[in-house]
């Protein structure tokens, strides 16, 4: 093991302990060479990988120049491997043709996966003839990988993080040349790597690994970066987003329930208000969250921000040209490891979200899946869309894969049959998932009359009962009242 940066005894012991576990993995990697199970139809002539660690969510950009080495066949499917150990961390993946900027279709492949790797199939827009080259950029977003080190920091102290990763870009095909650049938010503190022969250049906030020549497919190694990162690691344990459509009232009611935790380094000891108030701005926050920024539609009204015990009075809204910026301040600053929950809600006119397919009873609802909050990870997301009573043939169309879509009915104010409800369950989302989802349903004109009729029937029933009741006489003798 080679240490490139300064060492202290404390760090060394911990590193030793950490590398013990990682070396076990490494042992496995080298004992049996991993072999790519996808058809070896490509060769990577050059590959550039950027690992962006400047935010809690890690963005990896892999740009590969790919050559079709098959002798006579045009190729359309390029495979991108992802370590199964990271399958829970992989939140978002896209691919594009680097030259034409065309977005390429990426699907999780059902055929090519094993215990070690899951392959994603990237479909080229035009089949690649033999010998030809194409440049493909794959962007992945990884969540929950970095960990705070040390795990506890003081109120105004700076927190440090450790990132473990593969110094090589993981490829399904052999690469003639590849290079990885790691970007950290601040100066790199320490870098350790394995195997030792890899070359490392540390430049301020960058670590450059490689370039390496003739790297095998699925080449593995370990490297570790320690760096400083200020600010919180916002994480939403669960988000329940309820969208209620009212065609009568031309209203879209949105309510979002958040369960939040700051995953930054935990607060050492206890919170001191006096230290917090005395420290200058910028230092006093430490890794605490003082507020959240979120966008809501421009025409939103009746905005509220509450939690389990009532209204949270500390919030502000700013009207922007195309949206309303909500600045939500939690009741207390959220230091590392601190939790809170809250919910917000608002009403907005339905016009902008609902379209009728002309000539039919069909409606299409277009709403954003989540309201994006920057650098935030969402663990469990439940989106409930409640459609008007009488909506039939409901179908949800989503821009990405989710865990589950359920169709059910909900009964609320003045309902007789219940409203069709779509429940979408998803996990490990990030702000990139804040795309529109579409819900198609049929709603006939006569359904508009259900509610007034139900209300009228109820009133009629009440009146009829009171008529009958007032005519009943239960007396068992002459009235004693008149005496």
């Amino acid at each position, binding site marked *: 093991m080679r240490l490139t940066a300064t060492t202290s005894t404390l760090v060394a012991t911990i590193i030793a302990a950490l590398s013990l576990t990682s070396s076990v993995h490494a042992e496995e990697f080298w004992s049996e060479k991993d072999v790519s199970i996808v058809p070896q139809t490509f060769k990577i002539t050059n590959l550039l990988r950027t690992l962006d660690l400047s935010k809690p969510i890690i963005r990896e950009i892999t740009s590969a120049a790919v050559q079709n080495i098959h002798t006579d066949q045009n190729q359309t499917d390029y495979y991108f491997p992802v370590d199964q150990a990271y399958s829970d961390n992989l939140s978002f993946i896209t691919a594009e043709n680097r030259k034409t900027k065309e977005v390429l279709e990426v699907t999780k492949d059902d055929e090519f996966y094993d215990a070690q790797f899951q392959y994603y199939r990237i479909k080229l827009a035009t089949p690649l003839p033999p010998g030809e080259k194409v440049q493909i950029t794959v962007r992945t977003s990884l969540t929950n990988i970095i960990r705070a080190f040390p795990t506890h920091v003081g109120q105004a102290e700076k927190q440090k993080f450790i990132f473990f990763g593969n110094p090589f870009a993981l490829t399904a095909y052999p690469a003639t040349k590849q290079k990885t650049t790691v970007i950290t938010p601040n100066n790199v503190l320490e870098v350790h790597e394995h195997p030792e022969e890899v070359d490392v250049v540390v430049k301020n906030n960058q670590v450059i690994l490689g370039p390496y020549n003739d790297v095998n497919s699925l080449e593995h190694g370990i490297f570790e970066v320690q760096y400083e990162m200020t600010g919180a690691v916002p994480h939403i344990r669960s988000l329940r987003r309820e969208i209620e459509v009212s065609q009568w009232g031309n209203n879209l009611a949105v309510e979002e329930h958040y369960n939040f935790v700051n995953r930054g380094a935990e607060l050492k*000891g*206890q*919170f*001191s*208000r*006096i230290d917090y*108030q*005395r420290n200058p701005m910028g230092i006093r926050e430490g890794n605490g969250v003082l507020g959240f920024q979120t966008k809501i539609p421009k025409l939103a009204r*009746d*905005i*509220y*921000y*509450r*939690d*389990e*015990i*009532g*209204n*949270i*009075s*500390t*919030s*502000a*809204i*700013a009207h922007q040209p195309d949206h309303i910026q*909500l600045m939500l301040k939690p*009741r*207390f600053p959220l230091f590392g490891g*601190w*939790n*809170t*929950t809250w919910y917000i809600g608002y009403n907005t006119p339905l016009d902008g979200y609902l379209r009728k397919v002309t000539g039919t009873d069909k409606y299409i609802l277009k709403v954003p899946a989540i309201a994006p909050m920057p650098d935030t990870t969402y663990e469990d997301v439940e989106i409930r869309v409640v459609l008007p009573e009488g909506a039939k043939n409901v179908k949800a169309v989503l821009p990405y894969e989710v865990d589950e879509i359920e169709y059910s009915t909900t*009964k*609320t*104010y*003045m*309902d007789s049959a219940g409203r069709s409800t779509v429940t979408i369950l998803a996990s490990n989302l990030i702000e990139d998932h804040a795309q529109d989802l579409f819900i198609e349903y049929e709603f006939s004109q006569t359904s508009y009359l259900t509610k007034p009729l139900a209300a009228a029937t109820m009133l009629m029933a009440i009146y009829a009962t009171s008529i009958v009741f007032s005519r009943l006489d239960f007396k068992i003798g002459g009235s*004693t*009242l008149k*005496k």
Partner: protein
Amino acid sequence: MEKLESLETESSMLMAKRPYLRKEIQLLEQFAAIMSSESSSTVARVLKPTILILIAVVAISSRLFSIIRFESVIHEFDPWFNYRTTQHLVKNGFYDFWNWFDEKSWYPLGRVVGGTVYPGIMVTSALIHNVLHFFNFPVDIRNVCVFLAPMFSGLTAFSAYLLTKELKDSSAGLLAAAFLGVAPGYISRSVAGSYDNEGIAIFLLVFTFYLWIKAVKTGSAFFGLLTALFYFYMVSAWGGYVFITNLVPLHAFTLLLMGRFSNRLYVSYSTFYAVGTLLSMQIPFVGFQPTRTSEHMAALGVFGLLQLYAFAELVRGYIPPKQFKALLKGGIAAVVIIASVGLTILSFSGVIAPFTGRFYSLYDTGYAKIHIPIIASVSEHQPTAWTSFFFDLQMLIFLFPAGVYLCFKELKDEHVFIILYSVFASYFAGVMVRLMLTLTPVVCVSAAIAYSTLLDTYLETSEHVLASTKPAIAVTPATPAVIEAPTAATSETKVAGKKAAAKAAAAAAASAAAAAKSTEADAKAHAKATADGEKKRFPIFNLDSRMLVILQLTWFLFMFAWHCTYVTSGSYSSPSIVLASRQQDGSQMIIDDFREAYYWLRKNTKEDAKVMSWWDYGYQMAGMANVTTLVDNNTWNNTHIATVGKAMSTSEEVSYKVLRQHDVDYVLILFGGVIGYSGDDINKFLWMIRIAEGVYPSDVKETNFFTPRGEYKVDHDATKTMRDSLMYKMSYYRFAELYGGGNAVDHVRNARMPSEGPTLSVLEEAYTTENWLVRIYKVKDLDNLGRDLKDSTAFDKGRVRKVSSLKKK
């Protein structure tokens, strides 16, 4: 950029209705005038319900200030417990609620909730909630709880109408309803969010009394039964049911003494007592009290007395008077001896429990202060200041005696009841601020009687006299002269009183009858009837003198409505968990420190964390912070409260032992020194000391907290005991640093604090809210090396100093 405020649709809707408050009262007055004739015309039939509905609307909407200003939230302290139990009831069902053992309060003792609560209010809300949910109205239980008291205030106004109608007429009833709807004395306990027993209990009180009067009037077992049922509801809702338990028998007893025993009284009281007592014993918290405690003995005694009396009446009918007299003498002597001996034996042997301390303090206001400091420490148990009578009742307080006087003039059975009610309620209201609540209904009823009598007198017009006399005469087969005569008489004697007019009419009728002999008897009877009907009326025909009085009365009504609105909005509509203040630019600043601290505890401490605080905040902590508390507002165990007082008022070493013994994880205190909030713990500290001294006289001494000059000081002059006490240390820990070391000023007590603040070794600061209002400390664990915590803290500090000094070199 604008402030985002809680937007409640209901509140914005009701906001619009508020300005109508005064207008409605004004309209009401006019309507009441129209209806004073008791005519059963269609107009009156439509107007009465409309007015009542409007009164209910006014009553409800004037209670919504806090929702409009703040939000739909549960207020104060006790309502948080009721809210928490209601949530439990809704979530887990009735049986689970009944058997609920709450291990989160009174740690480590716990509390059997089902057996120690009056479940009425929780069951009512849960029922409303479940019915609404059954009809697919998913109303949040919080909103049901918040709006329960205002809704019931509408019903209270309605029952005041019914009660007063029984005493006088429906115009007085409407006035009483309007008065009770907005009287601050009642609003103080029934604003939206004030989810407390009193919220529904006052309705039940008034309605039970109405049913009782109805039962006495009619002698109907049915109404007696209804009285018993509502009495049961009242028992299930509020400890104040004892008031009914004593007032109703007292009424029966008084009637008996007045020689007004009747079968009506016998039937109604027997039905009420038998059914009501059996039903009330079904509430676990009441249990066998109706047969075993002194507070309930009067009811039992009167029940027995009535039986004996009825029996005597029965016997009297069958035997000659002489023998009966002898029998009666012997019987009374025997009963008195048996009863007094039996009662004494039972009282001394402990079968009948003596009066409770709270009851004694009603008799002797100084009692609690000496014997039970915990009762005296509650502000609502203090004797009422004279001004607060006017503050809570305004003009009603001087109309009240007039109304009682008018009751004396009538003095039917029901008027006796109102007189008794007013005498006793006045006394109790004078003894305890809280009992102003029971006085308010009777004040409203009496005042309405007085006010309505005034209106009757001064609004009566000649046309009215005509209208009421005409039909009576029209049916007589007398000649047209008979009809003309009173008309002429009325027009002639416009200035004269009504009595004169009636007399004239009678005279005219009599003279006409003399001409037609055959109809003489008829005419005489009618003339008499007319005179009887108008006997009480004094119509004043001079417009100017009428206007003078009417305008004045109207002005009083305006002032009353204005005063009620002002008091409600200014004094009784603060949720007390949120404080509001004005900033220099006039904008509202919300101080939300309580919820900040509670929510921090709720989200960032371990689930079973035990938090010690003074008992005032126990219910709020359980409800909002969801933590285990040591003591709370259900002050049933004085020793436990004293233990907490001891932990707060002794030195760190002594209190650490107490804290460890009770597994305390956090200690929560209120400190208002930074923003000048006077209700903080240092100001309550003397009560903690007193209560602790009562149980631990060797550890805590009140005198040690006073300076030699007898002052209660926190600054340089503070005594050593004071400065060593945990409460003092927690309050002022690092307080001086906020002012940069010098010139630290405690804004509540206007004290200049020493620049060197107290140090803590057994606690560490865990959380302090934005305005320092709530400070939470964590109890340190035992030292790893077995050292004293004081030593280890000093050692840690010392080391830090050494290192920093080394670095400097």
